[in-house]
């Protein structure tokens, strides 16, 4: 019986795919590999993987096409491989439903960590969901969704309504990179433009301060310049 997680790797560079396969194989995952968009579609439908790692630059079609194809009827976690300079591509992929991205070139430890987080996050939402009256706990941070209260090591943090909404949203998507526009849409019901991004950044600055974070030591909320925030 095989109860390993199945990971579909969609990547056309043989050297990268063989490296990723080795790394993930050693980490205890079963890797199936597709080199093109069309092949990946077939593989996805027949193997039903637990996670997809997708390189956006594929020979036959744009990786975004595959992303849309998968997201049409599946919530499987998708990690996108992207180059450093393409913040726009990252944001686009995340907004199209990707859960995370790994920037090329990446270390093997980083990749395995991302895969693990995405799988765990996925299981979390599947089993527990985002229950409004549930509780959330991450290290010293606890959130009481019912009472809309947040505690850090048993001490309550006084957040404003908006700040609480942001923190709660990030916690509901633990481990997932949330883009500016995704957060703004949920918290303010607004589309992302420069003033609303600024509003978000002002609130985030306050949240970080209240959580006792300092530059380089953001314990709960990681920020990715030009992309968004992630709770982890």
């Amino acid at each position: 019986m095989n109860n390993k997680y199945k990971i579909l790797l969609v990547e056309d560079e043989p050297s990268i795919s063989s490296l990723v396969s080795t790394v993930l194989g050693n980490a205890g995952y079963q890797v199936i590999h597709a080199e093109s968009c069309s092949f990946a579609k077939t593989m996805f439908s027949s193997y039903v993987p637990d996670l997809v790692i997708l390189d956006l630059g594929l020979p036959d079609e744009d990786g975004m096409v595959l992303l849309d194809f998968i997201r049409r009827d599946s919530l499987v976690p998708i990690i996108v491989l992207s180059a450093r300079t393409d913040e726009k591509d990252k944001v686009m992929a995340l907004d199209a439903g990707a859960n995370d991205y790994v920037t090329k070139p990446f270390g093997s430890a980083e990749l395995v960590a991302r895969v693990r987080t995405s799988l765990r996050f996925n299981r979390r939402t599947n089993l527990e969901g985002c229950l409004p009256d549930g509780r959330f706990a991450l290290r010293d941070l606890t959130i009481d969704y019912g009472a809309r209260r947040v505690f850090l090591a048993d001490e309550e943090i006084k957040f404003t309504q908006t700040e609480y909404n942001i923190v709660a949203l990030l916690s509901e998507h633990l481990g997932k990179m949330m883009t500016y526009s995704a957060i703004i849409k949920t918290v303010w019901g607004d589309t992302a433009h420069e003033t609303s991004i600024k509003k978000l950044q002002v609130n985030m600055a306050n949240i970080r301060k209240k959580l006792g974070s300092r530059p380089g030591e953001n314990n709960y909320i990681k920020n990715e310049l030009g992309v968004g925030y992630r709770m982890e």
Partner: protein
Amino acid sequence: MKKTVLKDISLTVSILVLTFVFCLILREVFEIGEQVTAIFVFAVFLVSLLTDGYTYGLIASVLGTTAVNYAFTFPYFAINFTIHENIISAIVMITVAMLTCMLTAQIKKHEALKTETEKEHMRANLLRAVSHDLRTPLTTIYGSVTTLIDDESMLTEEQRSKMLVDIKNDSDWLIRMVENLLSVTKIDSGEVKIIKTPTALDELIDSVIVKFKKRYPTQPVTLDIPESLVMIPMDAILIEQVLVNILENAVRHAEGMTELRLKVFTLGKTAIFEIADNGCGIRNEILPKLFGGYFDTTPTPADSKKRNAGIGLSVCATIIKAHGGDIKAENAKEGGAVFRFTLATEEDIDEQQI
């Protein structure tokens, strides 16, 4: 483009109107009429000099001739080109306009050519520096890997792990080099303007420190940034790279450094970033060309730690310049090097073309 056309038109009109009024005053009040043609020739010359292309100069010369003919030569307030003097002044003005325009066009062309050559020169320098800087780590990586493949059994465990660590370090270096090159080409690739978005200073610094810590976990950085939220319009990824480059430069080159400080403060509408170390400082002879070129490091031993800092720092300079800021390096009185660069905290409405 539209703006310059509008500017040129208004310039032409105002110069001509002023000249016309001036000549009218001269004649009506002081009864001087002989210099009118000369004054108009001067006006035409000015228009040709200050506007773009031939059009405005030629229009000005035609208008000028007509004005002189109409208002200032006999018969007054009537057009009459049958008189020889009038024809001559018309020809003179048109010739002046043509010649001036030709000259200014030539000068502009020459200047464009000169900046193009300079750019070419920069590019050639960059290429040379890059191929040098890429070859060294590649040699190590290639050499180590082939050794590991071919003579695996001959190596001790210790040698093998040392080689692997070297390979990793050199790959790290290559990765950063490529990042730098990408940034420069992003800026250099013609009319692509830097897209500035308001960025929260503490998020920027956070990202920088996280990146830096990942690479140099043992080197602490003392931070001194404003408590209040500061928003600075910038291409955050590029500015992040500038900060990481300068911090990294300190780790690589400031010998004997025990403290590395990053301070940011605002002065009016300018944010000043200051990176200071208490290491060995920068040799005076390379200080002036630190950002400009890819200086030769041949006098220093071929130690991999001493590798060319030129690319990283000139990338910094390119990025800061493209943001309209300023970057400088100096040696502090109490020892160590200080790097300082500025960014505007508020975007000018009338954005400058980069």
